[in-house]
């Protein structure tokens, strides 16, 4: 990881490489944690701002990617907390007006028609909303585990918790997801 250089040298070289390497992961974590694109953009910008300001202080006591995830998660949660008073961009725009009801086959990778695409988008929006309704800690752990595919150890490093906390929090997150997701999946006839 060759990014230990003075911030005064501008957005080139190692910083550019670091940004290119992590921007997809950072943005996706921010997007799934905040639940909308505008907040995700703000949180991602904040993440890279912090990252570049503090990168010289990184002591390699944990994986660098875990540190990046931690900053992204904290930036997203902080931003979400700050913007709690104002209404978030609605995901209803992605829904079909009918309310859905047609079965969706995850395994169907054939050519997708407009109706199927709309239904898929609607389902994804509802799943995202269900995740967004979780508490910040449960949301973060769900996103890191199932969207970013981190191991328990990486999650523990990213969230600054113990392995035991990761297990118990993930278990509680699944209990909450059961409440939030089951009605949606039932409505969409998903097994």
């Amino acid at each position, binding site marked *: 990881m060759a990014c230990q250089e003075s*911030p*005064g040298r*501008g*957005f080139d070289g190692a*910083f550019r490489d670091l*940004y290119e390497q992590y*921007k*997809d992961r950072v*943005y*996706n974590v921010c*997007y*799934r944690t905040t639940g909308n*694109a505008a907040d*995700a*953009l703000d949180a*991602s*910008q904040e993440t*890279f*701002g912090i990252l*570049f*300001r503090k990168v010289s202080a990184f002591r390699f006591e944990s994986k660098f990617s875990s540190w990046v995830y931690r900053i992204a998660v904290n930036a997203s949660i902080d931003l979400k907390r700050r913007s709690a008073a104002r209404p978030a961009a609605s995901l209803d725009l992605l829904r079909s007006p009918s309310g859905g009801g047609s079965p969706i086959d*995850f*395994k169907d*990778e054939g050519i997708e028609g407009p109706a199927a695409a709309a239904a*898929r988008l609607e*389902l*994804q929006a509802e*799943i*995202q909303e269900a*995740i967004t309704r979780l508490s910040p800690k449960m949301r973060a752990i*769900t996103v890191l*585990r*199932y*969207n970013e*595919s981190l*191991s*328990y150890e990486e999650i523990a490093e990213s969230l600054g918790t113990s392995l035991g906390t990761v*297990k118990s929090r*993930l*278990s509680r997150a*699944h209990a909450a*997801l*059961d409440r939030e*997701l*089951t009605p*949606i*999946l039932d409505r969409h006839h*998903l*097994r």
Partner: protein
Amino acid sequence: MNRQSIRDAMIESLAGVTPDHPAQGLDKGVDPGTDRLDLLPQAVREHLVENEGLRREWRQLLRQVRAIRTLERVPVPSDLDGRVVASLQAGYRQERAIAHVRALPPEPAPHELDVRMGQSAGRPFAADGLDPGFLKAPAVLDRLVAKRVSSGGGARPQGSPRSTRLMAAAALLVASSLGLMALLGDRSSNLGDDGLEMASFSFRVIRIEDPALAHPDLVNLLGGMSGGALDGRGRVR
């Protein structure tokens, strides 16, 4: 294994779940398309084969994770590049500005400041080489303190309370350059444009150079104002 440890093991095994993962070698009596028992450790799998409740819980967990994993990765908006660059450049500008300020040589205070401070303090304290910000107590204060201490009253000043002494000082100030504003004549009144009565008075300003020559009532007034510091003839006691 207790139920919680089985649940923990099931959750840990969900890492391999994908929305369209192909079915692999499975135990009989389970749905190969949905149950994915192959993901579980052997010990946990045996519990699930025997226990419908655990199998149902496993299916629920699978269902949740399959649903979450249908969420596709979102493309990074091109705005992010520009915003990150802009915020970094703003950060660089701030750092440069701070560095410039820190690199500035110390600026000596102008002599004009000494003059102004001296004027406000009533004496040119910078002329004797003292720090302009340091006001030296006048020598008379040392003498007064020494006198008070050497007198029988001890170190603690005796006498009137501070409020009374301040009142006396105020009265002396009035007496030394006395101006008295007297209200004279009758009140006259007339009606304003809005029909309300408007009062008017006549005033006269009297200046008395020597309190001893003042009217006795005025001297008594001063005596009262000074808390007795002035006697009946307007002299300081």
